[in-house]
């Protein structure tokens, strides 16, 4: 039994135990501990992974002549680390107080834990699959497990989860078609055969392969134009579930792209693939898809009035940065893209936790119904503050480092417009996250929220720990870059020559140890100057300038609705719901086709249908002879 077998077995045991004890109050605590043990088992493999040696599994099957086996590679290890970290945090958060509250409001915390365990098992299987058959089977498992988690709340969530499922099944079929293409060419489903088959492929076949695999994986990642399902499905998943999904679930799409298109196919192959009638290559296409995935969902997030929707839309946008970094194909960009996967998971989970804590106390995540909670929920506020600084990609948090690496790569590789696209995304994020924190925690506290207390420790501790990781890996990014170097080596990409504080080069350096220390120093001087200025008197929020009017408790003195009116007005003509239109056009077309087909063979003229089918069959077979 290898360490990988132990990990997978442990993961399966976690699922079975969760399933059998899901009605017990201690179920959440037990699963949290078991995820913790799984995380330990994963860290146990880190030495081997660090030297780039995969940890194989002793188990292998022979299905219909296809060999199925598994191995933990550095790439898989990096994603598994985030998966298990997110699982520990989410399960912990859901374990006691939140779970009881969820049960009291009609939900089933046990089902949520089971769905979470299904996700973890299927994701680990996906990450460790070492052949195309295993990859496809676990890809489908991941899709259905996500569906279970999304639909676990019932009601409208099921509708959004079904929306997802349609996309996921279509994506899965695209991947299957890609695999079939490989099988037809090689007669094998092993990774080696796939790599060998690529050299003889024509440009057209290569395009097809890129579209099938890339498109299939892009669905999960929510890349434009396949993103419509994600925000609603994620936002309507119960609190900790949405944190898990937002942190890692959609990144499985990126994993697929990294494995199949970067590691097996190699980015260089697509660099030579020119888009017909244009000077652009397939890589340019991917980069611009990533750039639009950054910009459009970010500005859609800006328009949201629900905190969870807002975060979920940002999750889609941040995926664009990861892909953009990776398709640059250089050491800086790919390291930035990969590091962003880790960074995003940490702050996104913290943000979802913070929002869920507010929902737990106030019952709403409507940004127009909250305000002023900082004095009541200071820990949730702090977690959100650290999270939004990370999400916006400002120093001193970890999000800045990964984005810096991507910016540097874009400049050095000569893509100024992509750089500007990435910057526009960051600026939009700053606007959006300020609206988020302002409308929830700043401004006027509502009368009905006067007596609210901070969320319980079982919810705030995971938040605090995640925020600490966001800060610590911003202060010492080398800790994460250390895990990324073997991944880059495995993917066949140039390896980043990192330092503990970031990156040193004559063309521009970043040393976060200096940056963060100097910021803390600057703030310390700022604090000394501030507190030297004498004591300030704290006043009540209603003791405020109101143009000569007196404010009382009944007066709403808060600016939250339509927070950026000028921007909304300017951007309004750009929002024509084109993607929604595209989706509904596709749906209508399919409905029409299926209605036509049904009309023929079911009722109207069955004999005509049979005749037509017979003629076609005769033409196909008979024509051949």
């Amino acid at each position, binding site marked *: 039994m290898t360490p990988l077998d132990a990990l997978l077995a442990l993961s399966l045991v976690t699922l079975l135990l969760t399933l059998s004890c899901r009605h017990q109050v201690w179920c959440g605590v037990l699963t949290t501990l078991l995820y913790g043990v799984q995380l330990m088992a994963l860290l146990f493999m880190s030495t081997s992974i660090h030297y780039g040696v995969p940890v194989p599994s002793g188990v292998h099957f022979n299905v219909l002549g296809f060999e199925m086996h598994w191995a933990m590679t550095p790439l898989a290890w990096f994603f598994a680390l985030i998966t298990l970290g997110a699982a520990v945090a989410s399960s912990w958060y859901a374990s006691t107080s939140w779970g009881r509250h969820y049960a009291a409001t009609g939900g089933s915390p046990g089902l949520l834990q089971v769905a979470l365990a299904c996700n973890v098992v299927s994701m680990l299987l996906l990450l460790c699959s070492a052949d195309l058959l295993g990859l496809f089977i676990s890809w489908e498992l991941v899709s259905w497990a996500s569906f279970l988690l999304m639909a676990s709340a019932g009601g409208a969530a099921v509708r959004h989860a079904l929306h997802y499922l349609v996309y996921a099944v279509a994506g899965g079929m695209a991947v299957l078609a890609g695999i079939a293409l490989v099988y037809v060419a090689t007669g094998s489903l092993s990774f080696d055969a796939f790599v060998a088959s690529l050299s003889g492929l024509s440009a057209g076949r290569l395009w097809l392969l890129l579209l099938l695999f890339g498109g299939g994986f892009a669905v999960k990642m929510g890349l434009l134009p396949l993103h419509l399902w994600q925000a609603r499905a994620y936002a309507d998943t119960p609190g900790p579930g949405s944190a898990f999904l937002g942190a890692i679930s959609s990144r499985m799409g990126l994993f697929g792209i990294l494995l199949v298109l970067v590691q097996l196919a190699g980015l260089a192959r697509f660099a030579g693939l020119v888009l017909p009638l244009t000077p652009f290559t397939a890589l340019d296409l991917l980069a611009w898809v990533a750039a639009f995935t950054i910009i459009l969902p970010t500005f859609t997030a800006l328009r949201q009035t629900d905190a969870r929707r807002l975060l979920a839309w940002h999750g889609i946008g941040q995926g664009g940065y990861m892909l953009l970094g990776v398709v640059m194909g250089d050491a800086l960009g790919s390291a930035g893209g990969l590091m962003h996967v880790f960074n995003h998971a940490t702050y996104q989970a913290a943000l979802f936790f913070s929002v869920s804590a507010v929902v737990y106390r106030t019952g709403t995540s409507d940004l127009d119904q909250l305000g002023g909670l900082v004095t009541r929920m200071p820990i949730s506020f702090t977690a959100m503050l650290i999270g939004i600084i990370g999400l916006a990609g400002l120093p001193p948090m970890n999000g800045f480092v990964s984005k810096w690496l991507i910016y540097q790569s874009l400049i050095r590789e000569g893509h100024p417009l992509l750089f*500007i696209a990435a910057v526009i995304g960051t600026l939009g994020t700053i606007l959006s996250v300020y609206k988020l924190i302002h409308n929830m925690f700043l401004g006027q506290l509502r009368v009905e929220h006067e007596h609210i207390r901070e969320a319980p420790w079982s919810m705030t501790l995971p938040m605090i720990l995640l925020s600490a990781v966001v800060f610590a890996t911003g202060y010492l990014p080398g800790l994460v870059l250390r895990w990324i170097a073997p991944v880059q080596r495995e993917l066949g990409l140039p390896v980043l020559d990192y330092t503990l504080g970031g990156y040193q080069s004559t063309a521009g350096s970043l040393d976060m140890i200096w940056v963060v220390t100097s910021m803390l120093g600057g703030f310390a001087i700022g604090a000394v100057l501030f507190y030297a200025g004498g004591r300030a008197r704290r006043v009540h929020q209603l003791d405020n300038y109101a143009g000569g009017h007196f404010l009382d408790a009944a007066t709403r003195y808060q600016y939250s609705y339509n927070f*950026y009116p*000028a921007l909304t007005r300017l951007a309004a003509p750009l929002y024509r719901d084109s993607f929604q239109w595209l989706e509904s056009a596709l749906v209508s077309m399919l409905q029409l086709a299926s209605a036509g087909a049904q009309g023929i063979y079911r009722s109207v003229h069955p004999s005509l249908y049979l005749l037509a089918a017979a003629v076609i069959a005769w033409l196909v077979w008979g024509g051949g002879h």
Partner: protein
Amino acid sequence: MGWGSVLLEVTLMPLLAFATGLLLVLMMRRIRARLERRVGPPFFQPLYDILKLYGKRVQISHGFIHDLGIIMVVGGYITVEMYLPMPGMDGLAAHGDLITLAYLMMVPSLGMALGVGQCANPNGSIGISRALMAMLGYDIPFMLVIVAAATLYGTTSLPDIIAAQQGGGMATWGVVTMPVMAIAGLVTTHVMLAKEPFETYVAPAEIATGPMVEMGGKFMGGLFVVQAFQVYTAGALYTTLFLGGGTSWLEFLPKLCAVMFLPFAITVLFPRFKAGEGLLWVWKWPTAIALLGLALIYLRR
């Protein structure tokens, strides 16, 4: 560089930046006064204003985040100054490049936004909403200037950018090698200063000075300190990217004053844009000029 000299530089740089900033603020107020046919304030007035505000007996705070906001604004700019080289001192510029500097410059804005947010005054929040929209406007041409400079000089390290310009004389200055970008940069600098016609987020008659509505005493004093840092940073960054920085203060200070003279002088001539109009103007003109400048740089390569 030893620890002693590092410590000396990171102490001196914010102090010198502050003093120079006060001088620029004085210049700004004197120019405005002369154009309005007044005498203008005495030499030490900018400093007196700050001392007076810090010394106020009544200081009003709306809570810890209000305090923290001011600390972040002042502290953030102190940090920024450590990464912006000045004559004879590179400070920490070796540890954080132009991009880091650009993002460090956003930290004070975030601090301001947080602090104002807790004041629970809609005027303040509207001011922040407008300020952030303005940032979304001017940061696009600003980042175009940065990417152009990084492309032209082949590095984002500020000391290297300065050395590249000082090594070859005036012919290698950014203003000569990328003149179109220099125009875009100057316009952007003006927009960043939040003076007319771009002071939509202060708009005293409309939203009661916006972010400043609940600021008094040392809170306002902190913002006055920041104003000095802000004008210095804008001028020094422009001088660094386009005018070769300065080998000595005798060269650096006149350049700074020359850069800031134009925005300070023409601001007096304008009324105020509406919030959306200003944003559109910035996306149209400086951005278009900057894109043209960028295209020229790429065509020449």
